[in-house]
């Protein structure tokens, strides 16, 4: 049997690097994305969002001027009625943009019958899939970086104070986390575009998942926690265990992970994202900011969880794509 496997693997031995043509695919994909009308609409949407929320935040910060060490970070988190804060908008918009970018990336090629033509070139399927993913990711990164620079520039102009190095580091990490959060939705939408031959179905499936995590998962987590850890005697331990289970369940959702990670990054005074017993806070100096390394440590599980989920989704999509018959 070992010989068989060896023979089988031997048959599949590659010739040349699987990365051949990867950057050509990336460059072409980016060019397609950046010139598409779909991207224009999304860009206008996000620029308007950014300008509106930052303007509102700046008005708010100016009117309640205080000795805040992290004035720049407040630009992202301050909400001015009726607009929510910039980070709130991002939690909503990033998945939508990611899904909109890639929901038809593979099945679109199928329906246009261009896939076999591409693969007739000396490009592996690996390179094609990764190139499409990276192309979309770089597009996202480009757009978000531009928005981030716009916000920092507006902040400098509007607040008149330069940001401290820690503020820059924290907001830059916020940008990175946002891009990677986009990555998980890219991987998801790409997987669906491999599974479903119809782009509309793939888009609907992706949106369904997004809606499920945005709206329903919190409710389901609450119900699940109540069923799995029912309160029998009314001890405070029971309540605590139930709440912890519910929190653990909601953290399966990438939206929750992203929201918590952003909260810890942009509000340095956040010490813990879980439940804190009053005894744990005895003697604590409340409101004192955590060093950046500690904030990072706090959200490290979130970040690794997001990254691992992205990789696993990509692996799933890759496996499915490799096993697909494309000579249609």
């Amino acid at each position: 049997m070992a010989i068989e496997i060896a023979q089988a693997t031997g048959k599949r031995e590659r010739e040349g690097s699987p990365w051949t043509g990867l950057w050509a695919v990336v460059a072409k994909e980016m060019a397609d994305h950046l010139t598409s009308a779909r991207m224009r609409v999304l860009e206008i949407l996000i620029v308007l969002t950014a300008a509106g929320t930052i303007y509102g935040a700046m008005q708010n910060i100016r009117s309640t001027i205080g000795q805040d060490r992290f004035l720049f970070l407040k630009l992202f988190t301050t909400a001015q009625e009726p607009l929510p804060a910039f980070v709130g908008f991002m939690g909503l918009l990033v998945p939508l943009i990611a899904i909109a970018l890639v929901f038809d990336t593979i099945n679109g090629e199928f329906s246009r019958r261009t896939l076999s033509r591409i693969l007739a070139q000396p490009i592996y399927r690996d390179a094609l899939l990764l190139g499409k993913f990276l192309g979309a990711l770089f597009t996202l990164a480009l757009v978000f970086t531009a928005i981030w620079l716009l916000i920092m520039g507006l902040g400098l102009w509007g607040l008149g104070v330069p940001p401290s190095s820690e503020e820059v580091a924290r907001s830059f990490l916020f940008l990175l986390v946002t891009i990677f959060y986009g990555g998980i939705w890219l991987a998801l939408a790409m997987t669906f575009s491999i599974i479903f031959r119809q782009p509309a179905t793939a888009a609907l499936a992706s949106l369904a998942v997004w809606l499920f995590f945005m709206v329903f998962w919190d409710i389901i987590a609450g119900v699940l926690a109540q069923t799995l850890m029912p309160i029998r005697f009314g001890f405070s331990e029971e309540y605590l265990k139930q709440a912890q289970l519910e929190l653990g369940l909601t953290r399966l959702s990438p939206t929750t992970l992203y929201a918590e990670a952003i909260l810890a990054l942009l509000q340095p005074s956040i010490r813990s994202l879980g439940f804190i017993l009053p005894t744990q806070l005895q003697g604590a100096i409340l409101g004192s900011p955590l060093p950046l390394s500690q904030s990072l440590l706090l959200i490290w599980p979130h970040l690794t969880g997001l990254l691992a989920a992205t990789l696993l989704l990509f692996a799933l999509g890759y496996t499915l794509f490799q096993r697909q018959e494309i000579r249609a």
Partner: protein
Amino acid sequence: MKRWFALLLTLIFIFALAAPSVVLAQDEVPGKEITFFTTYPSQVVGIGETVTLPLRLRTTAPAQVISLSMKEVPEGWTATFRGSGRAVEAVYAEPNVDATVDLRLEQPANVAAGTYKFVAIAKGEHGSAELTVFLTIQEKTPPKLTLKTELPTLKGTPGSTFRYSADLKNEGGDDLTVNLVAEAPAGFQVNFKVSGQDVTSFPLAANESKRLSIEAQTVSALEGGTYRIVVRAQGGVVDATLELTAEVTGQATLLVTAPEGRLSGQAYAGRETPLKVIVANNGTAPANAIELTSSTPSGWTIEFDPKKIDTLNAGQQVEVTAKVRPPEKAVAGDYVLTVRARPANGTTQSADFRITVLTSTLWGVVGIVLVAIAVAVVAMAVMRFGRR
């Protein structure tokens, strides 16, 4: 009969008319036609006082010139008769009108106490009169001040105020203006108070007594020991001194701090971290048996090495290592840790340390392992399904 009766009546009438003149004629004894007197012939006077006595002369005889002189004057005294601002020697006296003249008596320079007799004589044409005047020079009490206190020795700590109360009495016969001066060693600031007011000088009438409050404020860095404060009250040529004693007992004043005064540190959750604490004695006496205690956030352990400092001399400091251990599940962030040093003699001192709790990076490693597994899965998928 009727003629005899009329003659008798006439005689009686005549006699009745003549009788007064007969009586007056009998009063005019030789030498008594001049009356020489003064209202207060015996007086008590002070030393150095010049006495002026108003004298009166009365004569029944026809108007005449009466000469005045002193029959007896004590040695050294000067007696002069004065009238209209001048020295006079004779007076013109009219009958039944009092003539006045002043007798001025001047004391010699060093007059002794006692009674002095002066006899003045007024000589007229038909007689003379003498007037004896006694002047008693009273011995004046010499000026004298006394300053007394009931509690001349007080005990206290450095930095406290020693309050003595003393009685100052003017035992002399003169009113005095008293100046108060204190000679105190360095580290003492002496103030005087009378009726609650700060004074350095005040009038004190003869035989008057005043209660004086002497307040000696000490500096807190004063070394323990016995100090002498001399209080001097000066009034004119006399003075009175009072020696006061202040027994200052040294005090241990502790200070809890850290090297370079940096009262902050870092500690990892669940790990023992040494924290340097400095206990210094800034007082004036050694501190004994200093116990180190702390109040920590709940779940923390803290251990001092050494746990107890037996003796810490004044001006010395000792470094103590506190092994701080936040609990395993401590939430990252800043906490307040209070370290107290309690000597057997003296007050407890404390310092607040700000400890930043850092959480372990162990879970970060776990996250990286998780990502590594995901990468491995992708790699495996590539290995398994990678096509030509």
